[in-house]
């Protein structure tokens, strides 16, 4: 582009950017090919970590940009997961004769329909949560959102009678895997002399979605809407006085954040092939908030680091916890020990880096002291 000041310096920086971009793209593509040599387990961990990155990015819109503490975020994850589970498993056709007659082949929805549908449905739930909480701030808002998360979970647990919709605590199983361009992501694929197991195929799907999420978040952050959200976070009264309709902007933040959760949820359902209410406990919500806060609230790279770290840490600690357990003669439960180590790590990080591991570049510089 013919911008003013497009000198050699500018071209050099563009080249450098391009090289960095290409190298990291290659690395991201190569990661699962390398990791899958150690079996499917480690790739699976990475896949789930990518889902957490999506969730953390979505929550970051609500908590980081608009400054609305949401402790029930996992509800949107659950909405997306159950939406896909019900649309792509025998659950509904087995329990409702009319549906079985309408869809003799059963319900099998394609990816291009699921993603927008999951986003839209979760967005709708975002508005449903947002509307009654518009006047609440801080602690009060946190309590209400926490309750909302629990309500969704309790509903999923009990929508079994009189009509069996969610199959209660037993969950929904036999969920289809995704099909992309005729490729079944649930099957092993051979191409170019490479063997790509299902987990690796899902890795690429999740990676694409994470990249898309990052782009959307970045663009929102640097826009009229993003500035309005940040203005509300900084001073709601002043934001109103500037003509910002804080009601609709907050609702938009809730809805936008929720769409990320909904999409991630439908991915989770197809990846696991099984969903049950216990995957969507309060613990999960708190974990996602911890990812955002630990990484660096409001800062996209920080949030990604936080999500990857907190998603991977429990798995890595599995290897640390069991020797420790043996040292104590088996008196300490490995699972409890793991929780303890995570908690210690989080306290440590917050003490040393209170603004998160990778906080936002201070928005602009501090004004220097004037020289006399």
């Amino acid at each position, binding site marked *: 582009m013919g911008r003013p000041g497009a000198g050699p310096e500018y071209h050099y920086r563009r080249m450098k950017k391009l090289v960095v971009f290409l190298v990291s793209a290659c690395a991201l593509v190569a990661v699962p090919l390398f990791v899958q040599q150690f079996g499917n387990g480690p790739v699976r961990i990475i896949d789930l970590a990518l889902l957490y990155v999506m969730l953390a990015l979505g929550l970051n819109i609500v908590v980081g940009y608009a400054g609305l503490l949401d402790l029930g975020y996992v509800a949107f994850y659950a909405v997306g997961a159950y939406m896909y589970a019900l649309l792509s498993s025998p659950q509904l056709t087995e329990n409702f004769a009319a549906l079985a007659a309408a869809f003799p082949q059963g319900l099998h929805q394609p990816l291009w329909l699921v993603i927008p549908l999951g986003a839209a449905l979760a967005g709708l739930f975002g508005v449903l949560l947002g509307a009654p909480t518009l006047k609440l701030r801080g602690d009060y808002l946190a309590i209400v959102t926490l309750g909302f998360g629990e309500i969704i979970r309790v509903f999923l647990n009990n929508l079994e009678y009189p009509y069996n919709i969610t199959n209660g605590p037993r969950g929904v199983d036999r969920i289809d895997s995704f099909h992309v361009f005729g490729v079944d992501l649930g099957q092993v694929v051979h191409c170019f002399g490479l063997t790509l197991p299902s987990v690796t195929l899902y890795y690429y799907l999740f990676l694409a979605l994470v990249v898309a999420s990052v782009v*959307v978040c970045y*663009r*929102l952050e640097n*826009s*009229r*809407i*993003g*500035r*309005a959200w*940040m*203005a509300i976070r*900084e*001073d709601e*009264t*002043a*934001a*109103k*006085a*500037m*003509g*910002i*309709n*804080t009601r609709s902007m907050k609702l*938009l933040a809730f809805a*936008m954040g929720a769409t990320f959760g909904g999409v991630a949820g439908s991915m989770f359902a197809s990846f696991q092939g099984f969903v049950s209410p216990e995957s969507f406990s309060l613990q999960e919500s708190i974990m996602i908030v911890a990812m955002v806060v630990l990484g660096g609230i409001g800062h996209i790279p920080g949030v990604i680091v936080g999500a990857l770290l907190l998603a991977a840490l429990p798995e890595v600690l599995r290897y640390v916890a069991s020797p420790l357990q043996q040292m104590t003669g088996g008196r300490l439960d490995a699972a409890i020990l793991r929780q303890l180590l995570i908690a210690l790590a989080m306290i440590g990080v917050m003490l040393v880096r209170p603004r998160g591991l990778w906080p936002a570049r*201070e*928005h*602009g*510089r*501090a*004004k220097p002291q004037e020289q006399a």
Partner: protein
Amino acid sequence: MTDWVLDVSGVSKRFGGLQALDAVGLQIARGQVYGLIGPNGAGKTTFFNVVTGLYTPDSGSFTLAGKPYAPHAVHQVAKAGIARTFQNIRLFPEMTALENVMVGRHVRTRSGLIGAVLRTPGFRREEAGIAARARELLDYVGIARYADYRARTLSYGDQRRLEIARALATDPQLIALDEPAAGMNATEKLVLRELIDRIRRDGRTILLIEHDVKLVMGLCDRVSVLDYGRCIAAGTPAEVQRDPKVIEAYLGAHHGESQHG
């Protein structure tokens, strides 16, 4: 007929047993600096908050630039064309000075979610326009060199000017300044006075609430005096200064007889 920018009449507001405003009205002509003064607790800030939509009035009629408006929601009043500053400065502290002013453009721009995510040509054009106008305004109030500094790191006087720049960014019909000189030293007051004077010369209309009588008398074209929620006098600064009711409100009824008078 005079071109009234703000024409309000019969504004009343009661808080429980306290009649904070009792049928207050004022008319501000285009290009004027209009001062609103009164002793502490006279109802100046209440009036200000009613006009800008923060409090809902019990009664009153409100017209802005010939169009009636209902002061029911703050953001709608801002959209109608009244921009305000706050007595205790309220900026967006962690955002840069430039971003603060860019937020002010929100109400006069319209690109939404889709434009932002897809980076449409219309969005890019509007965004460039917002940034250009914001820089222009920072330059106008004289703090262009601090564009990339966080708002909370600016000096008190510069924060006040940034707040005025942010208000100007909304393209207001009327700029309402709530005690802009509060807490300023003599030099800062002088600079502020020059800025307000300049904004007036550029054809804007200003409503000024101020304690500093010297500033008000030197700057305002017309002044209204509030006391106990009533408008007790209105006119040019010179007229108001001589008004016995005003002297009484400020200095007490028998000030002429007192030794210190």
